[in-house]
């Protein structure tokens, strides 16, 4: 007879819609209401010191929409009034200075696309497959274009003294977040960001200013930045001693494990995004990134690693940014074991989870960049599994 979507007159074909200004700040279609950040309630004691996850399986391309960037707070969202916010530079500098937000906007501005990944992303998977969905296993990451000023320009105004080898950025929230960062990194590519994807930072991402520390673990990207102290040695504060240190099998722990190694995940299909169309042409896709460069190549397998295929990279390739890959193939409708394997521009190849465990044991929590496996059954449903 014909598809009613065609043969029947739909209301939007006949009636007038809302005019301009009905939605002065637009929102996605109500049919996309399921696309949202989600948390795992049992992970933390309280939502004000917790994390939620980016819905990677609902996104495409390389840019994360601002409202979907995962959140990690240690004392809730600081609701900062920019008129009452200052940035102070103090310590081993020639001039201890205070900047207003207007002052900062007068430094030369730069635009850069970077991923921000929490060091604990995939941390729940160290001991084995646990959470069903790439949102939960890999969603502590987002990738946006920052507009901001170079930290080196701001530091040069204060005049860093020769003995100044470290900085301590500090947040204005009720946790007073602090991390020690070596001066080389501070002067290399760190930024003080005011905008993300063209608009002002969202409150949950550090409005009005946050530190950008490209390629390094997300905890160092201090939000609601209010102060930077320059010193001659690191401070060894809570988030670089009791947390964000990697406990190894022998009871010793690595500290200052800043760089995020190359990693990838297949976002579709995945447990939250099964194949619903049956056998035939299909598009497998995912994202890959490296804190030490770009991603020239991703391999994928659909048979659990017996045979691998080079995926098609598509979209812009920026240093320390997310990359998008696709593998277009004819699904025969039989069960599959899917994996992706990122290669970064240094030649590093993403390891398996068991390779990581052989080096580090199972208590590390942080920096789990092992290869993820999805088992897809004949119905197209996907599950988080590990294979041997």
């Amino acid at each position, binding site marked *: 007879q014909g598809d009613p979507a065609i043969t029947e007159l739909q209301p939007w074909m006949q009636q007038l819609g809302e005019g301009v200004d009905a939605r002065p700040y637009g929102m996605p279609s109500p049919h996309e*209401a*399921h696309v949202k950040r*989600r948390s*795992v309630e*049992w*992970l933390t*004691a*309280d939502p*004000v010191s917790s994390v939620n996850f980016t819905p990677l399986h609902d996104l495409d391309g390389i840019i994360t929409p601002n409202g979907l960037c995962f959140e990690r707070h240690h*004392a809730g969202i600081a609701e900062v009034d920019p008129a009452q916010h200052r940035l102070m530079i*103090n310590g081993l500098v*020639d*001039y201890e*200075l*205070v900047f207003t937000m207007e002052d*900062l906007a007068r430094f030369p501005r730069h635009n850069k696309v970077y991923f921000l990944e929490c060091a604990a992303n995939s941390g729940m998977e160290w001991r*084995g*497959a*646990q*959470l069903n*969905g790439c949102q939960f296993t890999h969603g502590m990451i987002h990738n946006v274009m920052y507009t901001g000023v170079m930290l080196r*320009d701001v530091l*040069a*105004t204060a*005049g*860093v*003294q020769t003995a100044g080898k470290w900085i301590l950025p500090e947040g204005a929230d009720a*946790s*007073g977040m*602090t991390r020690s960062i070596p001066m080389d990194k501070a*002067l290399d590519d760190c930024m003080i960001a005011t905008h993300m994807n063209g608009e002002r930072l969202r409150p949950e991402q550090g409005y009005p200013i946050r530190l950008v520390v490209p390629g390094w673990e997300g905890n160092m990207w201090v939000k609601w930045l209010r102060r930077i102290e320059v010193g001659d*040695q690191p*401070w*060894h*504060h*809570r988030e670089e*001693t009791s947390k964000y*240190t990697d*406990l190894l099998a022998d*009871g*010793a*722990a*690595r*500290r200052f494990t800043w*760089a995020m190694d190359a990693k990838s995940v297949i976002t579709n299909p995945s*447990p*939250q995004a099964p194949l*619903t169309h049956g056998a035939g042409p299909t598009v497998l896709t995912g994202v890959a990134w490296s804190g030490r460069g770009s991603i020239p190549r991703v*391999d994928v397998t659909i048979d659990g*690693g017996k045979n*691998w*295929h080079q995926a098609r990279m598509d979209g812009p390739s920026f240093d320390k940014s997310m990359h998008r890959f696709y593998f277009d193939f004819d699904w025969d409708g039989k069960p599959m074991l899917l994996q992706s394997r990122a290669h970064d521009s240094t030649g*590093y*190849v993403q*390891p398996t989870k068991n390779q990581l465990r052989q080096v580090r044991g199972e*208590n590390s929590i942080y920096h789990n960049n092992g290869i993820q496996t999805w088992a897809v059954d004949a119905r197209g449903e996907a*599950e*988080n599994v590990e*294979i*041997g």
Partner: protein
Amino acid sequence: IGGAYVAANMMVPQVHTPVAATLGLTAQAQQTAPADTVVFDLGRPATAAEIAAWDIDIRPDGAGLPDGSGDVWTGEDLYIDNCAVCHGDFGEAIGRWPVLAGGQGSLTNDRPVKTIGSYWPYLSTVYDYVNRAMPFGNAQSLTDDEVYAVTAYLLYLNDLVDDDFVLDRETLSTFEMPNRDAFYMDDRADTEYAIFTGEPCMENCKDTVEITARAAVVDVTPEDEAARIARQAAATGTDIGVTEADASAQVAAAETDDPVEEGTTPLAATATDNALADAGPDPELVAAGEKVFKQCSACHQVGDGARNRTGPMLNGIVDHPAGVVEGFRYSKVFGQFAEDGLVWTPEELSAFLAAPRDYAPRTKMSFRGLESDDDLAAVIAYLGTFAQ
């Protein structure tokens, strides 16, 4: 410094001009900044009072520590009042709040217990963190002496000092934590990168593959009925119009079906009816109360889906019997209130909230109280708007 800077400030306000030499910067400053760095004449000198207000960070060598001291017994009282509600009477932790004591010798176990005593390398970190971020929801409220005392008590809870120990600048900066030498610098470049580099196998890489672990067996992924329905709708092309809100309403409805525990008084609807009787609450007062309640919200929830957290949920609390919210573990004093049949009339609530620890000695509620009668009236009016 100030004079030199003001002189620089008086130069022609062209952003791109003053170079280091004109600013009178030291030779060291020019060395540190990269050759292409331009010095911008922006910002103003920080005053000594401003730096003192914000520069609170402490280092392992004792740099930053204030004058003052605190002993174990003073620390115990402070800890019980301010910390035990989350961290437990002995640092064992309530729920998923951080464990602070014990765990010595556990770092090589399957489930290591990382506490101040078993893991933290430096005592200065404890002082710094307590001072900047604790008590949770009331940061920077302790005096210097009180922070020394709480830090001393945390050492005592970890069997690291005797009960006559006094902590001050000298004893803190020379204190050696047991796990201090178990941390070393990130060595991934030496221990991992060579293993994880090189052209990997692409064809016929293994004969067999088997699944060794499944997330579905662990079964800890949050349910998401709405997303499943949306997926089905997209797949079948029949959007049945179920939104996220509909689905969560169903969940909420199911949760409120929980049976009231036998023997406890059901939170009577009549109580809140009374509070809302006659003209109803003054909207301005309620709005003011909502702001005041932010001080309470770190521990107490109200409204739809409110649950017990660090403190009991407070729906229907006004004119309701004290100490009987289902599922909450009350302190002894609240157990006595329940036995005595105390009812939270606005007058009783007001007296309690004005001075919690006088009204209810040894209450688990670590809140100093509301000084203003206006705030008291407002927050009680706000609480009165929440029915059970």
